[in-house]
Structure formats: structure tokens, C-alpha cells
């Protein structure tokens, strides 16, 4: 039980810190990969909807606090994505990388669309999403998805997570 808490605490903080530090520093054309979304998809595919939505909510709130987006919008989107992907866990082969890459691409665009929708709903216009470079983010995240999933897979294996489907990528 003790390991359980260690694992999740370190994972939540580790991914968040990685997102804050690395994502910005490897930005191309002002677009950076969304590690929080990638991690939400990874754990939702392997852990089911409950893990997906709880982790998505926590990372979303953390991201909301550290960014200038509408407070709660990222929490909403990551929770939603965590749930949807978690429910799709039986349909998506967690060992098939191409399927997961497509899933990440679709979810990244869903995330962008959702955030733009909330921006429009609460501020009247989605000014932040008019920048064409923003549309590179889903592709960038998708490209980094295999490497990032491999890191998370190794990390989970390090803690011998038998409750996660971390067989082989």
C-alpha cells in the first residue's frame, strides 16, 4: 500500500514537472508536446476509466493553476479524455503503438477543440487558439508518444505495477 502512494505521488509530480520544464524547452514554432495529455492517455488505456479520469483531473487542475487558461477548463478536458480513453481500453490494443498514436492524435485535437470552446463560452472569443502554430501541438505530442509511453512503461515496471497492463510495448 505504501508503494502504491509513492508510485502515484511521484508519477503525478514527475509528469507535471516534466511538462513544466521539458515541454517548453523543446518547443518548435511555439508548439510544445502535451505530456499531461500523453500521461492521461497512457494510464487510462492501461488502468481504465477511473484512473484515467482521476489522474486527468489532477493534472488538469495543476495545469490550470500554472497557466493562463480558463481555470477548470483543462481539468474538464483531461477528465473527459481520461474517461473516454479508459472506456475504450477494451477496444484499443495497449500493445499496439499505432493504435495509441492515433488515439493520442484524436484526443489532442479533442482537447484543443474543447479548450477553444470554453474560451469562447466564457470570454467571448477563442483568441488564444487563432495562432496557427497551436495546431502543431497534437502532431508533436503524437510524434513523441512512443518515446514517452516507453519511459512511463519502464517507470511503471520499476515499481512492479501488476495492476497496470504493462506487458510489452
Amino acid at each position, binding site marked *: 500500500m505504501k508503494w502504491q502512494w509513492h508510485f502515484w505521488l511521484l508519477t503525478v509530480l514527475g509528469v507535471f514537472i516534466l511538462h513544466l520544464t521539458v515541454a*517548453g524547452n523543446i518547443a518548435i514554432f511555439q508548439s510544445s508536446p502535451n505530456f499531461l495529455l500523453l500521461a492521461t492517455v497512457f494510464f487510462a488505456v492501461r488502468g481504465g476509466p477511473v484512473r484515467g479520469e*482521476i489522474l486527468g483531473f489532477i493534472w488538469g487542475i495543476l495545469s490550470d493553476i*500554472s497557466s*493562463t487558461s480558463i481555470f*477548470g477548463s483543462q481539468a474538464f478536458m483531461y477528465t473527459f479524455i481520461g474517461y473516454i480513453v479508459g472506456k475504450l481500453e477494451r477496444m484499443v490494443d495497449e500493445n499496439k503503438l499505432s493504435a495509441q498514436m492515433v488515439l493520442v492524435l484524436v484526443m489532442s485535437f479533442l482537447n484543443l477543440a474543447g479548450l477553444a470552446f470554453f474560451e469562447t463560452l466564457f470570454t467571448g472569443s477563442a483568441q488564444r487558439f487563432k495562432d496557427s502554430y497551436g495546431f502543431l501541438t497534437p502532431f508533436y505530442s503524437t510524434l513523441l508518444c512512443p518515446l514517452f509511453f516507453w519511459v512511463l512503461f519502464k517507470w511503471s515496471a520499476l515499481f512492479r505495477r501488476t495492476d497496470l497492463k504493462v506487458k510489452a510495448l
Partner: protein
Amino acid sequence: MDWGIFRPTKPAALCIALLGLSFLFMTFRLTGAVSNLRTFLLYWISPVELVTGESMGYVSGFGEKLVSMVQAHRENAELREKVLKASLLETQYNELVQENARLRGLLNLNDSVPFTAQSARVVGRDPLNWTHAVWLNRGLNDGVRRDSPVLAVGPMDSGAGEGVRGLVGRISECSGNASKALLMSDPLSSVAVSIPRIGELGLAQGQGSYITVEYLELTSQAQPGDTVVTSGQGGVFPAGLPVGTLSHVEVSPSGFRRAVLKPSVSLGGVREVLILNMARAKD
């Protein structure tokens, strides 16, 4: 009835609860309760942002630091000479300040808003909104307050050493040892500006990836290349801070003229800034 993935289950109920909570945060984000919650969480997160940002700064700038060390030795000698000259200028400056105060007194003019300045470093950016906000390594403990103006400092184009290059934005949130600055390009940012050449006032409005100067008169003589500075109206920014130059003037749908502004500094690459701590009435 087949509900598919939307079949009512415990995970679905939890999902709806979390989505509802998130939506409540969005709806009531400007109320005291949610703002306080956000400030409380920011208090715990800002050290993480600060430490990681500083660490990355040291790692990513290692090569630059080595070169800087070599250059610093050479610059040190030049600066010693400049300091000697500066002491003479300081004497002249003090005399001018006294003369200015005496003349203002004669004309019954109010004192301009006094402010002090402190330097800060950019330690992080919002990965999702690169040109909208930056994290700085100064906070409430350093005297930084909300709405304090933030300026970029660096080598001047004229070659006259280091100086204020232009306005970057304002402080939007503060915690103990860190603060978040809203950049001019953010859609929430508005700055009262003037065009000194023609004496006209306008409003610099962030548009996401660019900035416009709104509400110029239809008969405005503003043209590309005109310098834009803060007007001092609104009480947030002191007058005369360089903001940028106009690059394109057009008629906006609102019936006014509008100009696209090229900022004095590249907002995407700003690293060192100056925070002005202004004495405000509410302080």
C-alpha cells in the same frame, strides 16, 4: 437500450462529478472562493515551478555561461571606467532632479507616480500558451504586487550598453517567491498608449500572437514606423515606457483606425526583466 461507453456505471458517475466540479470552477472562477482556492494551490505549486525553472536555466545555459565568464572579465575593465564617468553624471543628475522639483513646485504640478525597480529572471513559460505568460523568480516576499509593470532589459540596439528595451506586460498573480506575468500579447492584456509623434492616444490590445493599437481616430495621421509608448493613463503603467512601433494601419470594423504593433522586444524570447514596484493608492 445499449448505452455503449456511456452506460451509467460508477466510473461514469465519478466522471460526471469531476466534470461538474471543473465546470463549477470555470463558472465561478472570478468569485472569492475559487480565486482563494487557486491562490492557495498556486502557493504550493510556485516553488516547484521556481526550482525546476531555475534548474533548467542553469543546465540549458551552461555553454552560454562559459562564454559569458570570459566576456565578463573583459567587460569588467570597461565597466570600471564607465563607473568613474557615471559618478560625474550622478552629480549632474542630482542637480537636475532638484531643479526639476523646484520648477514643478513653481508650476504647482503634482509629482509623477514614484516607483522602484528590481530585476527578475524568467524561470518558466506556459507550455500551452507560449506567448501569453511567463513565470518570474520574484514574488510577494520581494515586494512584487499584482499589476506591477514588467519591462525587458538587455543590450540596446544603439550599442549603448544594457538598458530598458520595452514593455513586456504586467504581474497577474503573485505567490511567496514567484510571480506570473501576463504578456502584452495575451488577449486579456490592454495597455493605454500614445504615439508621441502625433500625440494621439490608443489602446494596445493583445490578440494572441500579435498586438494591435485600437481606437485611433479615423483622421489619425499614424503611419508605419511610428514609435508607441505608454500614455500613463489608467494608473497601471507610468508614462513614456517604450512599447513598440507601428507596422500596419487599417480601418477596423468598429469604425476606428487600428494599427498592428511590433513590440520593442521579442516576447517569445525574453529572459531578464525589470519589475516596477509602483506606489499605488490601495497600497
